[in-house]
């Protein structure tokens, strides 16, 4: 039974990653599955992220070990990296814990079968353990590599490395299960779940960027106060000390840490098995409000479609956070420039060639932040099982596509334009640059909106069971992100090459004008494609 359940869980996990039916061929008739090329691209991207993160953690580990090994407290480096690994594991799996354990769509089905609840829990917890293991390996493997390069390899370190890799995920898993449990209880009582999720997530993102920005300082602080931190950890957080010691090959440390983690995990698992049935079968949702009739107002078909897009957007934290994070940065940047831009301009003007570079940098910044918004890229796929509705209503495909573009322009185009206007009014630049930058904000947003939509029309995916699949893992989303980033990088590289070889007095402004014209032409071509070919594709999607 356990084997069957595990197979189902893992099949589901891989199906969501590779956009395939979890049980063989399945899926709707005539629907395309992700091709080999797309799967290869997907694997390449995962590898790329793993390498980047792995390299980052390797550098951190190097910095810590360079200071702690000579001081004889190398265990502290492991302890700190272990905490980082646990944190990464918890962040990576906490929301998955909630959706996989308590809000799984097949809870009712499985509970109705002759399967014991503990077997269901075990199969899901095991899948979560695999996820935790993968996250933690991103930190632990580079950490051990950095240590071995400095201190050499020994049987003890090898053994402890393997043990830690297998045992530490249990710690983050236990924490994820506790947090997931709390989220499940809280979300059962919440009224504005989407809004609260978005606020919590934005706070998390802000914290993350703050920590990343301050990381160098934190590491310097840790390195400078290593001895004191080591003393305090030994005195007040013995298990953390044991974790660090275990990594260096200390058997006592390993046994203590193993005992602590296993005891904690067993306790959490016990509570989970006792509460699973109650939580999994609990009726969700806040108290039901009774409908009170309000006056009716007639609107146009276009406004109805746009309203529908907005309602969908606001109802889905996943959609909001993954497709419009650029807008959050744009708003923060606009407020920052409005209040602090003057001082920044003064300090920048001291630099040589600043007058020419400032408009270019602002223009690039406006476009780069706009490129982070991919609202249209999953928008067709998100119609999912409701696509029949749009096809049955007396609206043309072009009206439907226009409503998706309008949503992008309202959520991304308007903030970008405001940001551009704030920038051109704060930073010194000529009239041409002052005109081009706000225009560029609109054109780049239109181009990215059209591009995302075109990619999604070419690569739609409707057979998903969780919105996170088209929003996070859709091929159109990945292609949109890569292409828009590629465009920005391409124009930046071309400018660098040109500026080395060509010297003109208004080089920056001329270059911005050329880029704007190229983007305008590309936008126009995409517009025609969407109107002619895109609408035909949309009509044939069902």
């Amino acid at each position: 039974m356990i084997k069957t359940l595990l197979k189902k869980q893992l099949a589901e996990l891989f199906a969501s990653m590779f956009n395939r039916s979890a049980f063989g061929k399945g899926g709707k008739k005539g629907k395309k599955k992700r091709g080999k090329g797309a799967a290869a691209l997907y694997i390449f991207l995962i590898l790329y992220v793993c390498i980047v993160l792995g390299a980052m953690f390797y550098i951190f580990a190097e910095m810590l070990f360079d200071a702690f090994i000579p001081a004889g407290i190398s265990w502290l480096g492991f302890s700190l990296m272990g905490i980082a690994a646990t944190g990464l594991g918890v962040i990576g799996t906490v929301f998955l814990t909630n959706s996989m354990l308590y809000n799984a769509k097949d809870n009712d089905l499985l509970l109705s079968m002759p399967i014991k609840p503990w077997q269901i829990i075990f199969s899901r917890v095991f899948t979560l353990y695999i996820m935790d293991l993968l996250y933690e390996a991103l930190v632990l493997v580079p950490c051990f590599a950095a240590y071995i390069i400095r201190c050499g390899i020994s049987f003890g370190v090898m053994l402890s490395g393997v043990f830690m890799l297998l045992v530490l995920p249990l710690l983050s898993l236990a924490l994820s299960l506790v947090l997931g449990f709390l989220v499940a209880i809280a979300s059962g009582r919440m009224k504005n779940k989407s809004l609260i999720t978005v606020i919590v997530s934005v706070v998390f993102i802000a914290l993350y960027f703050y920590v990343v920005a301050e990381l160098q300082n934190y590491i310097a602080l840790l390195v400078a106060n290593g001895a004191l931190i080591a003393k305090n950890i030994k005195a007040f957080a013995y298990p953390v000390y044991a974790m660090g010691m275990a990594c260096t090959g200390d058997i006592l440390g390993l046994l203590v840490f193993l005992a602590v983690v296993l005891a904690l995990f067993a306790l959490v698992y016990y509570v989970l098995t006792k509460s699973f049935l109650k939580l999994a079968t609990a009726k969700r949702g806040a108290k039901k409000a009774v409908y009170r009739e309000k006056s009716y107002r007639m609107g146009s078909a276009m406004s109805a479609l746009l309203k529908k897009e907005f309602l969908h957007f606001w109802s889905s934290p996943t959609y909001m956070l993954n497709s419009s994070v650029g807008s959050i940065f744009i708003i923060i940047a606009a407020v920052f420039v409005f209040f602090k831009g003057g001082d920044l301009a003064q300090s920048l003007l001291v630099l040589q060639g600043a007058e020419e570079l400032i408009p270019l940098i602002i223009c690039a910044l406006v476009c780069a932040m706009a490129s982070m918004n991919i609202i249209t890229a999953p928008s067709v796929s998100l119609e999912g099982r409701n696509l029949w509705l749009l096809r049955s209503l007396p609206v043309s495909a072009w009206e439907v596509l226009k409503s998706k573009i309008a949503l992008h322009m309202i959520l991304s185009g308007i903030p970008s334009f405001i940001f551009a206007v704030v920038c051109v009014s704060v930073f010194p630049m000529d009239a041409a640059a002052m005109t081009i930058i706000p225009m560029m904000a609109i054109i780049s947003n239109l181009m990215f909106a059209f591009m995302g939509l075109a990619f999604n029309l070419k690569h739609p995916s409707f057979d998903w069971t969780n919105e996170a699949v088209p929003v996070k893992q859709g091929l159109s989303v990945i292609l949109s992100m890569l292409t828009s980033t590629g465009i920005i990088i391409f124009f930046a590289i071309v400018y660098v090459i040109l500026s080395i070889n060509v010297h003109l007095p208004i080089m920056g402004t001329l270059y911005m004008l050329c880029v704007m014209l190229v983007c305008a032409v590309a936008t126009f071509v995409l517009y025609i494609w969407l109107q002619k070919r895109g609408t035909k594709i949309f009509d044939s999607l069902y």
Partner: protein
Amino acid sequence: MLKIKNLTKSYGDKKAVDGLSLHIEKGEIYGFIGHNGAGKTTTLKAATGILGFDAGEIFVDGVSIREKPTECKQKIAYIPDNPDLYDFMTGIKYLNFIADIFGVSAGLRGERIRKYAAMFELTQSLGQPIGSYSHGMKQKLAIISALIHAPKLIIMDEPFVGLDPKAAHCLKELMREICREGGAIFFSTHVLEVAEKLCDKVAIIKGGKLIKSGTMEEVKGDASLEKVFLELEEYDD
């Protein structure tokens, strides 16, 4: 009201509908019966403009759905077998959305929402998100939204599935009322007793081909519809 001429639709190599022709007049309730996978849903979806087709022609009130889909859809309402509606909307927002799309005035939509929501006992739940609705509630909402623009032709795929007895009775009464007022209804069902009591005409489809159609008397004679249907199914096998 609805004329289907030699409709053919294939999925890959499989012909789901093969040269099917039907004519549904104003004032008629037309039942469409057949076993699972016979091609009923494909025909209904093609008739509503949801699905394209390979050959043949479909006219709604004399207008080709292939040439002027939007004009045709303005006169149609479709109720699917599985009411997948926008879970992120509340019931009332969904009804307003549909009313806006069909250009129903504020006064008329208010009147119709009040009437049909009360009839199907959904008024109290209109403020709830559709995601929290049961299957039956979604089905009721789909029916109300189908009636909001007073369509000339209603196409329904298994409309009674999930409805409680009272709602099913209300729907049957409504179907008769709509036809009395000059509308037409084309619906599929597996409940042959309902088809027998409710329909003016009936069509039986098998393997994508129409095997019998006509008035209820022409199709079943003195026997029951169930008997005729089972005989036809066996005969062709």
